[in-house]
């Protein structure tokens, strides 16, 4: 399995029937493809939409209907549109059950950095700071290490933070880790991963749960 698919597939298991979920750009968006059969999950998009449907059939794209990644999407029966202020009132008010987003770095305290690399192209934080500060639960879904094998899961983030102590769970192609006051607890291993491999690619000491399971 493609690492991104492993991550998205595993993250989808965190969904529950009736959940309202905000998915970030990239791997998190892919989570929508793995919603278990028969489960109803409503996607919130911070540009002002509740009830995001799949991508449109070619030829039916609507320039007025995009998600927060500016991708063309569709509506579902029961979709509602609202303003950006109302959308972030919804987010800030803690009404979104779960926010899944990517990261450049996460650390053992649940600090998250995903918006800025000093000296690199200016982008901006978009809605990420609002989302991580207020969703009831925040899951980081990302590849475990950088392309060159450098750890992204650290003792302490070195990049400017998106949120302080905001992450609940980290899901990578190699592991599922829970943020606790003692540090990161390794709870599950990816299809072919070993504890040693995960620890080697992680920049902070992991607490290995008594019963580490396989993801799938």
């Amino acid at each position, binding site marked *: 399995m493609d690492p991104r698919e492993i991550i998205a597939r595993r993250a989808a298991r965190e969904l529950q029937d009736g959940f309202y979920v905000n998915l970030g750009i990239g791997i998190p968006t892919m989570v929508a493809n793995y919603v278990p059969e028969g489960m109803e999950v409503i996607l919130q998009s911070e540009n002002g939409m509740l009830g995001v449907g799949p991508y449109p059939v070619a030829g039916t794209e*609507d320039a007025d209907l*995009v998600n927060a*990644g*500016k991708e063309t999407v569709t509506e579902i029966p029961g979709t509602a549109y609202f*303003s*950006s202020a109302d959308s972030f009132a919804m987010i800030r008010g803690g009404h979104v059950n779960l926010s899944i987003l990517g990261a450049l770095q996460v650390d053992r305290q649940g600090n998250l950095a995903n918006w800025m690399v000093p000296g690199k192209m*200016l982008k901006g934080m978009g809605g990420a700071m*609002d989302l991580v500060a207020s969703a009831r639960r925040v899951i980081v879904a990302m590849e475990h290490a950088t392309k060159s094998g450098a750890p992204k899961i650290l003792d302490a983030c070195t990049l400017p933070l998106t949120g302080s102590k905001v992450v609940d769970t980290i899901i990578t192609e190699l592991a599922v880790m829970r943020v606790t006051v003692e540090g990161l607890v390794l709870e599950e291993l990816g299809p072919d991963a070993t504890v040693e491999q995960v620890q080697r690619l992680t920049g902070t000491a992991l607490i290995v749960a008594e019963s580490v399971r396989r993801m799938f």
Partner: protein
Amino acid sequence: MNKIYPSAEAAVADIGDGATIMIGGFGLCGIPEDLIAATVARGVKNLHTISNNMGVDHVGMGLMLEAGMIASHIGSYVGENKLLEEMVLGGRLDLTLVPQGTLAERIRAGGAGIPAFFTPAGAGTIVAEGKEIREFKGRSYVMEEELTADFSLVKAWRGDRMGNLVYRKTARNFNPVMATAGRCTIAEVEEIVEPGELDPDSIATPGIYVHRVVRWTGYEKRIERRTVRGGGQ
């Protein structure tokens, strides 16, 4: 009461050098293209813009950026905008990045007469530096102040001569919020209807907020990322 102006040019004719301007839209979705073009054509300078994004090359606010008319910008995401980066690094444009929800709420506050409020977004990050931090129920919040503008340029779907507006799908985004925060709000609409034609229960922007209404020229709306379903689905 007739707020309809004959053209975008007429509607923006009093935007002067140094004005603060809010511009609606999310990416290229729901941007007032005709009002932007008319503002660019006026050739004013030193504008202070407030908008979630900064357009892309040659489209939307990208045109204003390329015209060198923006002195400062407040937004949440400026994406892959090479020229903007050059201008910021070269000290020719003062950029302030604000969390998107904080941006939306600061604009709402400006329209709603609320000078400041507290939000959890950005607490413990560089966004909070220099700002008042306060704890409520054991959690840290940042005090953020209102934003208002001399002019708000917004894009709506339908409007009437009284300034009532409705929006279409996600083209709503920042438009209704900014409509409330402009001392002069100018709305570009796709269709002008008679008062009473818009359902009174569904008017997103009541006319009190809108000072001028212009019918768009019927340009083709841009799609930033055309994504479609796989062939077999």
